[in-house]
């Protein structure tokens, strides 16, 4: 939960236009409204992101980070200049598909540790109904910014005035897993010049391990195993941005979903979004192994299951069938 509200800046942002705006009074009413918005959006449990830095220098330069730290720790005029920098970055990061929005930048705390929260509240239209001695009226309001819109976004960064602080933060962006990467990347990558803390490589390995563990622990529950395998096939064919939770909720029945989430290394990893990398997935989890009642063991690459290798139902038994020309043979010792 953010500390005492120390500074507030607000800028109506129209894509591509130079933003106007600046410091606004940090009233108690505004502080309470923003606090409620923070709690409702669960900003402190948002996606973990990291600022992007040049991998070959010691400079730790990142314009968004520098501006955010100036808002937190700078003198008043430096903080205001930094807020304008952020507003300009946002206007430039938007394109004509983006809705006009109100950018609100708040700085919290006066001690060594401070927090900066950036908000986007999209512009919306609304009706106001009123009644007075002249009768009932409906007015169209077209200059309001919504605190509860699904398109609102937030980012929070906290720390000390040190080179080791403000390197990463939390982001709330309900579009972050949008299939349209341009929409998904606008807030995190283009505006904040940041990246998801869980890389595609790491997320895919974590995902593959959790899938394997879950699949193995479902030994005997053929229906659940098939459901899991089918869901994995779908994701491999249409790579996307996902988290263990989004995968589980979208594709699996609750008992299988719960099992999968239990196999994550920690709660934080359950919700961490990453860009699924099929090639990496196949490096970790490439084969499905079938042990047959006749003693044969069939090892099939995942992409051949349900195609070159088919499983059919026959009198309550699952029967594996495959047919092909042998192109190579190897011998293998039993492991362990």
């Amino acid at each position, binding site marked *: 939960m953010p500390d005492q509200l120390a500074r507030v800046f607000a800028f109506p942002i129209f894509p591509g236009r130079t933003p106007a705006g600046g410091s606004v009074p940090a009233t108690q009413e505004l502080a309470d409204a923003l606090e409620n918005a923070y709690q409702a959006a669960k900003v402190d449990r948002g996606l*973990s992101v990291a600022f992007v830095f040049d*991998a*070959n220098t010691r400079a730790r330069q990142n314009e968004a980070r520098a501006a955010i730290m100036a808002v937190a720790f700078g003198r008043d005029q430096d903080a205001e200049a930094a807020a304008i920098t952020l507003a300009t970055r946002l206007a430039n990061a938007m394109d004509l598909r983006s809705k006009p929005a109100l950018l609100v930048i708040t700085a919290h705390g006066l001690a060594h540790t401070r927090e900066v929260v950036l908000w986007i509240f999209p512009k919306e239209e609304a009706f106001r109904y009123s009644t007075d001695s002249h009768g009932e009226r409906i007015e169209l309001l077209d200059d309001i910014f919504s605190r509860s819109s699904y398109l609102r976004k937030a980012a929070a960064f906290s720390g*000390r005035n*040190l080179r*080791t602080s403000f390197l*990463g933060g939390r982001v709330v962006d309900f579009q972050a897993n949008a299939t349209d990467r341009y929409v998904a990347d606008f807030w995190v990558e283009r505006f904040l010049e940041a990246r998801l803390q869980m*890389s595609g490589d*790491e997320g895919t390995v974590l995902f593959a391990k959790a899938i394997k563990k879950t699949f193995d622990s479902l030994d005997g529950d053929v229906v659940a195993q098939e459901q899991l395998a089918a869901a994995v096939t779908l994701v491999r064919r249409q790579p996307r941005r996902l988290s263990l939770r989004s995968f589980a909720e979208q594709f699996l029945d609750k008992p299988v979903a719960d099992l999968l989430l239990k196999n994550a290394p920690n709660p934080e990893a359950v919700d961490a979004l990453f860009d699924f990398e099929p090639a990496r997935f196949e490096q970790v989890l490439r084969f499905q192994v079938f042990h047959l009642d006749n003693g044969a063991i069939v090892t099939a690459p995942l992409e051949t299951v349900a195609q070159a290798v088919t499983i059919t139902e026959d009198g309550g038994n699952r029967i594996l069938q495959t047919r092909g020309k042998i192109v190579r043979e190897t011998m293998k010792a039993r492991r362990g």
Partner: protein
Amino acid sequence: MGKLANLVREYEARKGLLDQLAVALEIGLRECVGELSRIDRIAVRVKDPSSFARKASRYKVPLEEIEDQVAGRILVHFVSDIDRVSNRLCARFSVVEGFRHEPERDAEFGYESHHHVFLIPDHLKPDGWEAFDPMPTTFEVQIRTLFMHAYAEPQHDFAYKGGELPREIQRQLAWIAASAWGADRAYEQVRAHFSAEESAGS
């Protein structure tokens, strides 16, 4: 109790969490580069409290600012392997900075190593991490060849008290560093010869 002693006690109280983080990071490093060829070893260690104490006076908030409280080391066979490893690490972890430790003057030989500082990912922080403040936000990874390591590592065994080393010792160390540097270059040429031959044969 003195300020430094208090600080070391605070560090020791956090050490269990740092140990858990080190295990998670070592798994991550192995997943990331473990399957690459020509990796000699991968290790992650937590800074010893006495080493933390020696460094602490240089920082305002040492419990956050000392960036090698948890540090990894990857040893590779050839100089050209360093970039390969470095690129993999930077794709996986959020890089904060990268730099090459090498002697400043062209005609000088000494310690060489490639260092990266990465953000500690939130999803690798063990339970209980948030209960302490300040905590480190970054970890360091050194990447070096076996010869760079062969020059640097034995020096930890010398009871070096600081100050100027005798001229003869300085020259001996420079000779070892130059030999390691030369061996790395020579091995790189041998590697290039064999990989050219392999491409010609394929």
